């Protein structure tokens, strides 16, 4: 389980997170929703140890990671897979090399095993035969799928998705969501996803957390969030403009 307690973070005079609390149950898909610029990616970066909070704690299976640095933090990260917003594929490497990279550098697997796992990972995301292409030679949706393959090829226990469907058409959004759902059912990892995709994420999430003004405004299973009486949540999931609130 991932526990976030009283997480506070400011950049200069701008306070982004204001004592945020959240619990992510093991093996679940937790989706964090909220307005653009509301601090969702900042929260995610705290969970993966790329940012350190001004106050508060992040605990992964009881281990506080907020104070960890270097090797101690790397030990926790060995259990992670991360899908970045833009994919973050290494553009000097072919797609297959991108997927092979963590297997070679992190797990130090023998070459035949790497080849086997890379082929299987590309097959899982529906990109068999595309391994020889460079990231710049494939579409945005394919890049996201290669990024998912790279994040999952080491079979991590916890996978973070930072807006994995941003900029994709509705068909590709559903394709990626179903891919994540299929892979989750197969590997049973704990997933934390930041997303804007309303209402699509309600189909795949076990828990939805609404981030508003640096705190979690509401958290619960998708039906509870959809039926929420909280005006902030209602406005967001209905996509109502600012001045429509309270009508």
């Amino acid at each position, binding site marked *: 389980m991932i526990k976030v307690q009283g997480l506070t973070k400011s950049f200069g005079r701008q306070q982004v997170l204001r004592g945020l609390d959240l619990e992510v149950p093991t093996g679940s898909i937790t989706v964090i929703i909220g307005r653009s610029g509301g601090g969702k990616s900042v929260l995610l970066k705290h969970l993966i140890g790329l940012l350190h909070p001004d106050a508060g704690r992040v605990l992964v299976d009881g281990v506080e990671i907020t104070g960890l640095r270097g090797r101690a933090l790397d030990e926790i*990260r060995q259990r992670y897979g*991360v899908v*970045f917003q833009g994919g*973050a*594929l290494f553009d000097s490497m072919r797609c297959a090399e991108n997927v092979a990279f963590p297997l070679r550098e992190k797990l130090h697997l023998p070459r035949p095993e790497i080849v086997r796992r890379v082929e299987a990972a590309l097959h899982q995301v529906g990109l068999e035969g595309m391994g020889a292409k460079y990231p710049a030679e494939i579409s945005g949706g394919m890049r996201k799928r290669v990024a998912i393959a790279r994040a999952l090829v080491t079979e991590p226990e916890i996978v973070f998705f930072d807006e994995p469907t941003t900029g994709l058409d509705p068909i590709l959004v559903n394709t990626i969501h179903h891919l994540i759902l299929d892979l989750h059912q197969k590997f049973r990892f704990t997933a934390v996803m930041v997303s804007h995709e309303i209402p699509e994420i309600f189909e795949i999430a076990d828990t939805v957390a609404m981030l508003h003004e640096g705190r979690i405004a509401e958290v619960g299973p998708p039906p509870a969030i959809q039926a929420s009486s909280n005006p902030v949540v209602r406005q967001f999931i209905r996509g109502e403009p600012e001045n429509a609130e309270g009508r």
Partner: protein
Amino acid sequence: MTDRPLPLALRALDALGQRATYVVDSLGRFGTFLGQALATILTPPFKFWAFIDRIHYIGYRSLLIIVLTGGFTGMVLGLQVYLTLVRFGSEAYLGPAVALSLIRELGPVLAALMVTGRAGSALTAEIGIMRITEQIDALTVMALNPLRYLVAPSILAGLVTFPLMTAIFDVVGIFGGYLVGVELLGLSQGTYFGEMQTFVDMQDIMTGFWKSLSFGVVVTWVCTYKGFNVGHGAEGVAKATTDAVVLSSVLILVWDYFMGSVLP
């Protein structure tokens, strides 16, 4: 508690203090970056193929510009020094004058400036783009040290390639001086090279070598640091690239003076 505005008299002092803190903080981070990179170089695993790739990137791909600038620098030196020496009837010393200027000063400095312009700027832009596209974050969250993959091989490659580039610059420059002095202006070949052997000793060559070695560290350190600490978007990469070239060039000239006054 709300912040009360400072009295006017204290605002300038406050701004000065903030600026000073920023400069000290930046210098600290700059130094720590090199320290971490050197620690990474000294601890396994060593990324051999990344190192070879950086030698190709910094060294081999700078060869043409080094040969061109070295050749023309030697030719200009040959012409100008000959025209000066001939007034004193000392044109026999053209060879040593060209060789000493190149080996002690111009070779290391100009080769370093050329490599900075060609490879240093590209290094900053490449790492900067990796930063803004989260490729460096991707390495970090894979529990892999980005310094080991991006910085350590570049600094090591700088240590290897800068002395080699300088040596090539010197040799081509001396040949450029020969073309002008001997082939064009009629100085005898024996005089050009004979006097050179008399006046240039190992100490001069080592002075140039130590300079080029230190420039190799300075340029790769500055350029990788600027790439790592890039601002936002394309504008951030453009600014980091410009800053890297300007800072590297200034440091090369400052460090050259320092080395010149310390080394024999």
